[in-house]
């Protein structure tokens, strides 16, 4: 590069350099959000981490279930109810934190750096940015977590089968639970994004998310026992547990009420986030 290009009269594009009739479209914003997602190292790392953690932890939980089973059997416990296949899917407990953080960062990363002003200057109607982020994030997280849960499930069964504890994919509820985990993790990530739009600060949104999925169930146990059945099943993590299990807890919500419950959480929080985005200055 010569000094000339720096200080000389700048070259301007010929007026015909850009095709006529350009406009902002939802499809364009979607492609932009896709590029924005993959061009950050933090998203790449989160996705890789989610894959490794899902498969690795499912195997680890399978191994732990087997050794637990051995110990109980040695003590002569009655084990007809022992169902290890669900235990071997519990990686999602931890992966929900990875996905939740990613969901928060997709939004608060833009507020923290000032990028949001560029995003909203390009798409000043604002809602296309929200939908773009939602679709990109939901597709990526659902595909990645569902496939890795499938692989985790398949990898865990040989470990469980060392004690004949494994089940096959054709076992009732197995495929439903695997897809359910992908669905639940997607919803948790999107709840993270919704909190991001609402709160705008990474630390605050993360605190709210972790409070909701980790601390609220524990605090709920402190409620009077007559209240608990009316509140606890409807927390996103408890409803999610029903969706994510091959053999759900019979005292908890049934599948579709559980799906409805997490969707209501998601829709309500997102409605709040969108309201804040439309109303408040960027």
């Amino acid at each position, binding site marked *: 590069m010569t000094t000339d290009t720096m200080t000389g009269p700048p070259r301007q594009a010929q007026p015909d350099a850009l095709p006529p009739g350009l406009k902002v479209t939802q499809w364009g914003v979607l492609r*932009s959000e896709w590029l924005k997602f993959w061009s950050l190292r933090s998203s790449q790392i989160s996705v890789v981490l989610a894959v490794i953690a899902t498969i690795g932890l499912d195997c680890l939980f399978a191994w732990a279930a087997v050794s637990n089973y051995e110990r109980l059997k040695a003590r002569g416990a009655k084990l007809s109810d022992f169902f290890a296949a669900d235990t071997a899917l519990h990686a999602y407990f931890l992966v929900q934190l990875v996905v939740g953080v990613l969901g928060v960062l997709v939004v608060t990363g833009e507020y923290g750096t000032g990028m949001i002003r560029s995003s909203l*200057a*390009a798409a000043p109607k604002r809602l296309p940015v929200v939908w773009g982020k939602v679709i990109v994030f939901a597709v990526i997280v659902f595909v990645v977590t569902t496939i890795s849960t499938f692989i985790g499930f398949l990898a865990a069964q040989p470990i469980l089968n060392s004690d004949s504890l494994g089940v096959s994919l054709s076992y009732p509820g197995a495929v439903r639970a695997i897809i359910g985990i992908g669905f639940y993790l997607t919803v948790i990530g999107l709840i993270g994004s919704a909190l991001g739009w609402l709160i705008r600060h990474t630390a605050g949104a993360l605190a709210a998310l972790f409070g909701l999925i980790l601390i609220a169930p524990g605090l709920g146990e402190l409620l009077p026992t007559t209240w608990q059945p009316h509140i606890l099943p409807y927390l996103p993590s408890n409803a999610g547990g029903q969706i994510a299990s091959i053999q759900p807890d019979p005292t908890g919500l049934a599948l579709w009420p559980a799906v409805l419950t997490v969707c209501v959480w998601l829709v309500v929080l997102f409605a709040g986030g969108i309201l804040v985005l439309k109303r408040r200055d960027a």
Partner: protein
Amino acid sequence: MIEARALTKRYGPKAAVDDISFTVKPGVVTGFLGPNGAGKSTTMRLILGLDAPTSGDVTVNGKHYAQHSAPLREVGALLEARAVHTGRSAYHHLMAQALTTGIPRSRVEEVIHLVGLQDVARKRAGSFSLGMGQRLGVAAALLGDPATLILDEPVNGLDPEGILWIRNLLRSLAAEGRTVFVSSHLMSEMSLTAEHLIVIGKGKLIADTSVADFINMASHKAVRVRTPEATRLRELLVGPEVSVTSVEHGLLEVSGRSSAEIGRVACDNSLPLEELTPVQASLEEAFMELTQDAVEYRTDKLAGAA
């Protein structure tokens, strides 16, 4: 063309922008001048629809910014605080902006060359110096080849070479018939770049005029007089239109009388003069004086309320 009508933005009781009306015309560089905190950045965010006005209205090319079907084609903006994700490369940042509006990759590469970032385009924007960050902001502003450019403090952090580059760029963009609206808190920089000035202080419009007229309007023309008979001369000169200040012992600064008039008064009264010099305020002084008024006005009001 940018048109603001009675534009007002309040944060609580404080008005950041207070009932401002102006028009920024195409074909010239219009400087937007005011001290820090005068409301320049707020006004620019209002133009882009990032903030909503409390009352009043601002349009670009006849429409609110958000109503344009391709805002990046209409208005290119460089905002003062960096509006770039630090973890993304310059190329990906520009590409992401371009995709929203369907601007082709060739244009992204073109603006990267235009601002001289081709060697670092693949590096994370967070590793950029202030000057490189400003160049990236300019590249983003030019991306849609817009008819209107809004740049908030574009020379901030640039070295002299970069400042010269910005100055030439802005002038050539205006010469192409574009509307160029540039903010700065440096009067001297604006006097070299802009032809027209919009001056604000404490959120209020102070002037909307050509650079030349602004200097005339703002310049308090004074005459410096050195005389051993300072006290007597002062008494003879002071009047309703005339103010005399004592700079130091034996040195007066007189405004409201020309040097010829002062010389005649001294001669008529047989007062010896050692120096008689017309002084013209520099641009920076002119600007400071005008914006100082806005500050003083506010202080007076507070004192009155107390």
